[in-house]
């Protein structure tokens, strides 16, 4: 569903991603862990076709994102670290707008329903987004994925800056998305959330995927040790 084959990106002689091979299946949450500059965001941007790979290919549902940019984007929802929406519009209007860009017309009632499914309070859906907290805005992003029935979710530090309760809510939503059959690629610094939410965890350092493990096979403590060991290299 989400596939990187020998994917590399070099910026002005600096390797950001090197020969990445990853295959994330439906119903799987893959968490990329790594320090700042490890290449997590570049990897997500490669899947979004925002940067062109220097080598290899990034594929969504079997399609190379550079050859099928529109078709692959039709299948995915992207939630950046700080999901910015149109502050003058309500949650419903924002959802209607972004769904409309993929050809999905939503009535206000449909949009409200999807927002509520994503955990947003019913009383907030008509409010201007300028009054929303970061956690509420992230929920609009999840509502977008639910409404569009996205096969793929690309998340870049989605829980960064969220309070523990909001972060826990968000993890619950991801699990729901996984159960709906989505393939999720999440870049994060948050080892605890990665262990709790992900199916598999990949550790990146200096653009290289240095270790890949199943979340269920390690304890929180083991994961931390492994991670820190790689970061010291």
């Amino acid at each position: 569903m989400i596939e990187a084959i020998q994917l590399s990106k070099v910026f002005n002689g600096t390797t950001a991603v090197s020969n990445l091979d990853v295959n994330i299946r439906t119903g799987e949450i893959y968490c990329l862990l790594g320090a700042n500059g490890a290449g997590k965001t570049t990897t997500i941007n490669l899947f979004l076709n925002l940067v062109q790979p220097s080598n290899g290919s990034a594929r969504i549902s079997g399609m190379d994102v550079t050859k099928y940019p529109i078709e692959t984007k039709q299948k995915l929802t992207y939630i950046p670290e700080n999901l910015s929406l149109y502050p003058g519009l309500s949650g419903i209007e924002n959802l209607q707008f972004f769904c409309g860009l993929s050809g999905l017309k939503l009535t206000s009632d449909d949009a409200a329903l999807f927002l509520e499914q994503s955990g947003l309070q019913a009383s907030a859906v008509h409010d201007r987004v300028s009054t929303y907290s970061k956690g509420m805005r992230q929920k609009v992003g999840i509502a977008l994925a639910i409404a569009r029935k996205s096969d793929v979710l690309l998340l870049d530090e989605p829980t960064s800056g969220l309070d523990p309760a909001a972060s826990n809510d968000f993890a619950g939503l991801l699990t729901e998305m996984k159960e709906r059959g989505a393939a999720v690629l999440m870049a994060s610094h948050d080892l605890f959330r990665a262990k709790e939410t992900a199916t598999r965890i990949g550790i990146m350092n200096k653009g290289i995927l240095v270790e890949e493990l199943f979340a269920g096979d390690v304890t929180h403590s083991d994961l931390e040790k492994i991670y820190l060991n790689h970061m010291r290299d």
Partner: protein
Amino acid sequence: MMRHLFLFEWLHIRKSGAFWGIVGVLPLMIGFSLFLGSQRIAHQEETMAQLRASEREFYEAKRQELKAIEQDGSSVDMWWQNPANPLVLGQFGQAGKHVFLEPKPLSALAAGQLDILPFYGRVTLTGTEPLRDNALENPFMQVSGSFDFAFVLVWLIPLFVIVMGYNVISSEREGGTFALLTSQPVSMKRILAGKLLFRYLLVLGIILVSMTAWALLFGIDLLNRDGGLLLIVVSAYIAFWFLLCALVNMAKTGSAVNAVILAGLWVFFLLLLPSIITLTSSTVHPVPSRALWITEQRAIQQEVESEGEELFDLWIVDHPKEFVEGDTPQFYNIWLRRFVWAETVQERKQEAERLFEEPRMRQTALAARLRPLSPPMTVQTWLERKAGTDADRLRSLDEEMHAFQQKWQDFFLPRFRMLEFFASDELKEIPSPGH
């Protein structure tokens, strides 16, 4: 997709103070410019009506006077009081006729060169006299300039377009929504096109609705072929400025930089480029100074005066059957000479004028070839041409006056030279300019 983008663009724009500012100010500017235009046309038409009425009254009075003389068989002692005398009818006092450049359907839209060039003039047997009753009589007009629709369209509307279009994409970057937009299954070019197209149609709609409403209110007829062409020109000109906004938005610059670039383009297209075109055409084809031309005209006048009798003698030799010999009245002898001299002055001035006019025409032609480089200049020129207030048309007044003067002279001078006075019935045949 476009419908969707339009709908949400409207949701954004209706919450924008800048947009409501434009909705408030732009129609007022258009209305004010059309009001001033309609006033200008009304003034022109009033001037023409008054002068034509005055001409009609003058010649009707002369005809009645002459008829009365014919009926009671009386005679007039003083030659200058005799309504049958060609000089009285063609030269003196109120005699003579006015030639006008009639307003065109779009005249209210562009004052053009009317503040420096006249739209009418008086023709008598000895010459043509262009008349001004506009800016030169009201110097404040030259200080304030003409606030006409051409000024609003060419100079001010681009500023409104820049306000509407400078940050269409940069505001998405600055607001953080760009990241989410780029992940959507639609290209940024299409989003940019949709957003700008909607804003373009909105601005165009405001302009067209305002123009139509104000034109109806002020009695300006836009429902004609030129009105249709105007619609195309306005649409294209606004599209040009939105296109510049699109190009600037495609660069990954911030809103402030975009605004500065677009303001710079406004200065370039409206101020610098026209100046460069003017400089180039005047450098390649320099025109002798106006002062030299005026000096030349005075020299011709003096030359003819000094040649006086010699010129008249030559004319006598050349036109042996076109005058009366023997004991003729004094006024006849004086005016026979004056007409010869006036004709000579006119001929020599025309010859000299060519020396000044030819480089000017070459300069104008070069400027016209370079003009398409500047869309604002092209639109301004087009509007003035359609309004009939461009320099070429206003200069054509001279030609029209000279052509009519020829008719005027052909009607009166042969009769004067043969000392043949008019009968009252013949006064109906006094020529009028072919308005």
